[in-house]
């Protein structure tokens, strides 16, 4: 089975290279059979890759420690359920995983574009083929997960304990898929430019759809990562501006800018060059993310899946950046906008400003992430010789205010009309949201929110939320006046323009996320407690009695499980069990916080250490409104799906293209 997998990898490499070369050659030389054959090669590629993936899974399940990757990332004690996690726990396996996923995504993408974008498709296939060839080349020659060991060990080293968590079943694959999925809208956009169709806007609708798919996957990867950090890393937070976190955030920011600005191109035929630049940036940042993930050059808590081959990713990033910019310059004459900005008070101007701010946040984040490398290089130090990191305060202070402006633009941008807004338009659209913001600002100040930034942030969130509600209420009432009941009016309003109203749902989700982040950033409290069994302590309105601690030994770890009896305001809240595990094989400890989460606040206990004399140290947090951050995930997901759902438009036969029409001038 392993040999079959090896052969499948080699065949897949050849197929991917053929798909790339054949597709470009077929398009340039106008040989349709060659282009179609290359496209078929892309179709068959995932099936061949599945054989290699199946071989690796089989090796894990059969505990075949003759395979180096299996020996390094599993052992006999590992529960079978974690085979899935072990598959991508290391560099080679994760590369194979993302190649398989990307190959499937490519097939779906090509099937969706090939009829609507017949000229763009061969070039898009060529670009996808190039990316796949690169990944498969790395897998085959540098990081082969099916490589054999000369001597077979009796047992493997086991899986990294930090990965043994439910969040790890989905966070890494979603995150990796998100990063690589940016290549799909990139391929469509560059393909359109190569086919001299970049300025004809046909690619925009499908580029937007795939941009949103990519954005959604990146969003979920980020949120799952934050949730994993919150529940397992035991520091009471969810976002630390760690380089690997940032590496996923940067393409997300660029993709957010892209999916908004392509709407302007779709509607007004503007921003054609700008959209190309943004998607090139997004793909470059996604590749930078892969480099940071695998390079090991930037200090990070994410130590898994690192290797020394990150520099190859950097090289590939440089080549694709140079290549795509060369295509951009070459085809610049086809990218002239149909229209110009009529006024700075218009929706497209708001989108442009929002785009610029998203990119500013991305570059502030990029600078903070790569600063250690720049510093080491400028000081003539070797990589890792001196550990330099850029901390949370830099990112919070610089990005925080810009993100607030972005939320404000998210609220008022969609309320502005296209082309230009008169003073009357502005007053009518903004008076209710601004009044709502003012009221909320005053109320939060009155109830004791003293941090000016927190009060401002909550007021801005209120402006954005009121703007969305105003849109829904006005639209529903208007339809109601024409005889529809309110529920029907609301439903039909949403159905009439799914991208727009789905977008509003997503914006509501983002607001929930922002409110949770603001509240927990400004008003989270923590304290350390040294306790013996039987001790009682109070903090943040909670009273907790340390009942006992139990040591439980497993094959791979020893766990100390503490039990707390928790109450608040005289109400019994139950027993909470934070735990700390030690993995001798890895010589690392891992904590599991006990969290009681409500819509108001989280009560969070995490053990720091257990002493032999019976004393234990616990860190206790009260984090307000964090629950809203996790609930925002499904809201964003459903909103995006609604925005992406196809809108039925009747097409009577009478106005269809005459089937027998002759064609003289194409």
């Amino acid at each position, binding site marked *: 089975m392993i040999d079959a997998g090896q052969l499948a990898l080699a065949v897949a490499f050849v197929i991917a290279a053929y798909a790339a070369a054949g597709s470009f050659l077929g398009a340039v030389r106008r040989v349709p059979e060659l282009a179609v054959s290359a496209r078929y090669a892309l179709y068959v590629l995932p099936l061949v890759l599945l054989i290699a993936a199946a071989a690796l899974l089989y090796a894990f399940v059969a505990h075949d420690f003759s395979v180096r990757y299996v020996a390094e990332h599993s052992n006999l004690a590992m529960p079978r359920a974690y085979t899935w996690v072990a598959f991508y726990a290391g560099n080679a396996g994760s590369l194979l995983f993302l190649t398989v996923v990307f190959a499937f995504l490519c097939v779906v993408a090509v099937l969706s574009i090939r009829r609507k974008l017949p000229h763009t498709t061969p070039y898009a296939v060529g670009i996808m083929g190039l990316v796949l060839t690169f990944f498969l080349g790395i897998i085959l020659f540098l990081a082969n997960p099916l490589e054999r060991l000369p001597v077979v060990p009796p047992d493997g080293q086991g899986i990294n304990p930090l990965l043994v968590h439910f969040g790890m079943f989905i966070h890494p694959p979603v995150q990796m898929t998100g990063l690589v999925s940016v290549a799909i809208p990139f391929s469509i956009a560059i393909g359109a430019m190569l086919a001299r169709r970049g300025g004809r806007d046909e690619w925009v609708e499908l580029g937007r759809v795939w941009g949103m798919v990519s954005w959604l996957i990146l969003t979920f990867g980020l949120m799952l990562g934050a949730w994993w950090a919150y529940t397992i890393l035991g520091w009471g937070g969810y976002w630390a501006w760690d380089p690997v976190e940032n590496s996923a955030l940067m393409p997300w920011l660029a993709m957010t800018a892209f999916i908004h600005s392509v709407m302007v191109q779709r509607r007004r035929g503007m921003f054609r060059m700008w959209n190309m630049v943004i998607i090139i940036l997004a793909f470059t940042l996604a590749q930078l993310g892969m480099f940071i993930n695998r390079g090991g050059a930037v200090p990070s808590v994410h130590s898994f899946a690192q290797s020394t081959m990150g520099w190859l990713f950097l090289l590939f990033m440089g080549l694709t950046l140079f290549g795509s910019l060369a295509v951009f310059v070459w085809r610049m004459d086809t990218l002239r906008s149909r229209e110009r900005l009529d006024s700075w008070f218009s929706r497209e101007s708001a989108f442009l400003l929002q785009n610029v701010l998203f990119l500013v946040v991305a570059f502030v984040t990029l600078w903070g992430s790569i600063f250690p490398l720049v510093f080491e290089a400028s000081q003539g130090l070797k990589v890792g010789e001196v550990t330099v990191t850029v901390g949370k305060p830099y990112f919070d202070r610089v990005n925080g205010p810009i993100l607030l402006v972005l939320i404000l633009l998210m609220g008022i941008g969609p309320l502005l009309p296209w082309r230009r807004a008169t003073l009357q338009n502005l007053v009518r659209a903004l008076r209710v949201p601004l009044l709502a913001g003012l009221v909320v600002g005053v109320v939060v100040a009155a109830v004791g929110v003293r941090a000016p930034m927190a009060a401002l942030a909550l007021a801005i969130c209120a402006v954005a939320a009121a703007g969305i509600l105003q849109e829904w209420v006005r639209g529903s009432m208007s339809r109601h006046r024409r005889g529809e009941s309110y529920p029907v009016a609301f439903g039909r309003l949403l159905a009439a323009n799914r991208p*727009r109203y789905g977008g509003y749902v997503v914006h509501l989700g983002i607001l929930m996320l922002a409110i949770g982040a603001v509240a927990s950033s400004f008003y989270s409290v923590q304290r350390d407690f040294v306790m013996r069994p039987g001790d009682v302590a109070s903090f943040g309105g909670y009273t907790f009695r340390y009942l006992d601690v139990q040591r439980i030994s497993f094959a791979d770890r020893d766990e100390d499980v503490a039990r707390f009896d928790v109450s608040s305001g005289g109400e019994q809240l139950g027993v909470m069990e934070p735990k700390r595990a030690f993995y001798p094989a890895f010589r690392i400890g891992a904590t599991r916080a006990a969290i009681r989460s409500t819509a108001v606040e989280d009560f969070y206990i995490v053990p720091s250490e257990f002493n032999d004399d019976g004393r234990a140290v616990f860190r206790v947090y009260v984090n307000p409104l964090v629950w809203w951050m996790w609930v925002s995930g499904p809201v964003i997901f459903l909103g995006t799906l609604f925005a992406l759902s196809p809108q039925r438009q009747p097409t009577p036969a009478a106005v269809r293209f005459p089937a027998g029409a002759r064609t003289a001038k194409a």
Partner: protein
Amino acid sequence: MLVLYAVLIVLVPAVVILYPFLRRKGKVGESAEDESSAHAELARRWDAALSSLKSAELERSVGNLTEDDYQWLRGQYMAEAVQVMKAMELEEQQEQELLATIDLEVKRIRERALGAANGKAPKTREESAEAAGE
């Protein structure tokens, strides 16, 4: 067994990849030229123009497009449709008939969107805009 796997892994993709070339020789099934032929290009442009026109009408009827924007977009899409018709070398009467059916279809969409049951359209631009909070 390994030989069987090897044959399958190499042979199946090879057949799939070579199929477009074999098909051309046998002249069976869809032609690879179809997707880039002039006819396909014109059909796609025709569908895109009509779809955009209908979409613009729908947006205007719920107030998402101002009258000026709608008229501008309509002009663009109608010009595209006319250009395609010219390229199809239709008779003048056929062109007129096609343009008339487009107008009819757009009117139907407007009625459907505004609630054909009571036949009431928004009286003012403001009311129209309220339908979607523009």
